């Protein structure tokens, strides 16, 4: 019974951490907009934490470059399982218009596995919330399969 309550709780309490891999700040302020009273993601139990050790979902914005890919990998490794990664915006998904620049590695999935891609330049807050919900469904499924 307790096991099923834990499983149910996973989707009800996603704590998100937001990492900016050199985004233009467009997607970042959309992420922060989700926390304002207008969208109020705390309704769904979503809490914005500043600590990878407490986070369940990693939101990454911006293009990954050679300098910050180590930081991104490090943050991902510090998150305890089960976890999900959501790439936000064109840059996070593929590198966007910067993908051919000499210092750019590409999208987030070049460094860490990504579960959900949220498109947009910048991504809309509604799309971000939608992405988190889709990510939760995905990691619930992953946990099921692992057992």
């Amino acid at each position, binding site marked *: 019974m307790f096991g099923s309550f*834990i499983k149910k*709780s996973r989707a*009800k309490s996603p704590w998100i951490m937001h990492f900016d891999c050199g985004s233009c700040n467009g997607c970042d302020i959309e992420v922060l907009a989700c926390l304002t009273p207008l969208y109020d993601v*705390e309704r769904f*139990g979503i809490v914005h*934490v*500043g600590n990878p*050790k407490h986070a369940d979902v990693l939101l990454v914005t911006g293009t990954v470059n050679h300098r910050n890919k180590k930081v991104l990998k490090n943050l991902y490794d510090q998150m305890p399982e089960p976890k999900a990664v959501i790439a936000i915006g064109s840059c996070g998904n593929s590198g966007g218009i910067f993908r051919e620049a000499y210092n750019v590695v590409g999208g987030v999935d070049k460094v860490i596995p990504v579960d959900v891609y949220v498109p947009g330049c910048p991504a809309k807050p509604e799309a971000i919330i939608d992405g988190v919900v889709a990510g939760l469904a995905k990691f619930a499924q992953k946990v099921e399969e692992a057992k």
Partner: protein
Amino acid sequence: MQTLILVIIGLVGAPLLGGLIAGLDRRVTAWLQSRQGPPIMQPFYDVAKLFGKEKMVVNQWQILCAWVYLVAAAVAVALFFAQGDLLLIFFVQAIGGVFLVMGALSAKSPYSQVGAQRELLQMLAYEPVLILVFVGFYMVTGSFSIQAVWAQEIPLLAKMPLLYLALCYALTIKLMKSPFDFATSHHGHQELVKGVLTEYSGPYLGLIEVAHWYETILVLGLCALFWHTNVAWMALLIVVTYLLEILVDNTMARMTWRWMLKRVWLIGMGLGVVNLIWLYAR
């Protein structure tokens, strides 16, 4: 036998009630910020999720410290429900606090270290206030036992109103609320990340959360003792006190530790000492 039943009620009921209070707290906070807020059951979902996460620790000390913190908080609540000795309760909950600091100090992370130092300063602020409140209990009832409180004819609030205000200071610090939330806060996104709790994760963070619920109930229980003659007034006193705490939390910014030491020592302990002198002179 009756004591045993009371202890079991305390051990099982306190975390449930503490979690509900934490949930209500988040709802009221959201209402004050014109948001909707999470469901009242949210703290239970959070803790259940934490228990289901990977066990990731920096070192073995953290596991011990998290457990000792929980056990100390639970034992303090059990002693409270067993009508035990206030001094013993004080020492047991202080041990819990010390182990929380030790757990944070055992990790090398600067956030955790700074959080631990600040938590020590917070303890330095609220522990003397708590002791003064217990001395007040002694001067009124002639005993440190909670049992002696029930023998009183009139509510303690009439005899030690200033000590109640001082206890409210300690309550704000104990609940990690603004302006005294600088060792860790519920919105761990500021310069400290999460202070003493930075290096805890998964099930061990869950243990600490449950211990925090126990401590909330313990301090609110102490507040309730001030109006022991009538259950309705007791409940009203706790509700009003807690609502005031939420209001203060939402209207205040975080202050520095120097500000806290000055306020709590001068005003908090000052109120306590004045009340004690009044009790003595009467």
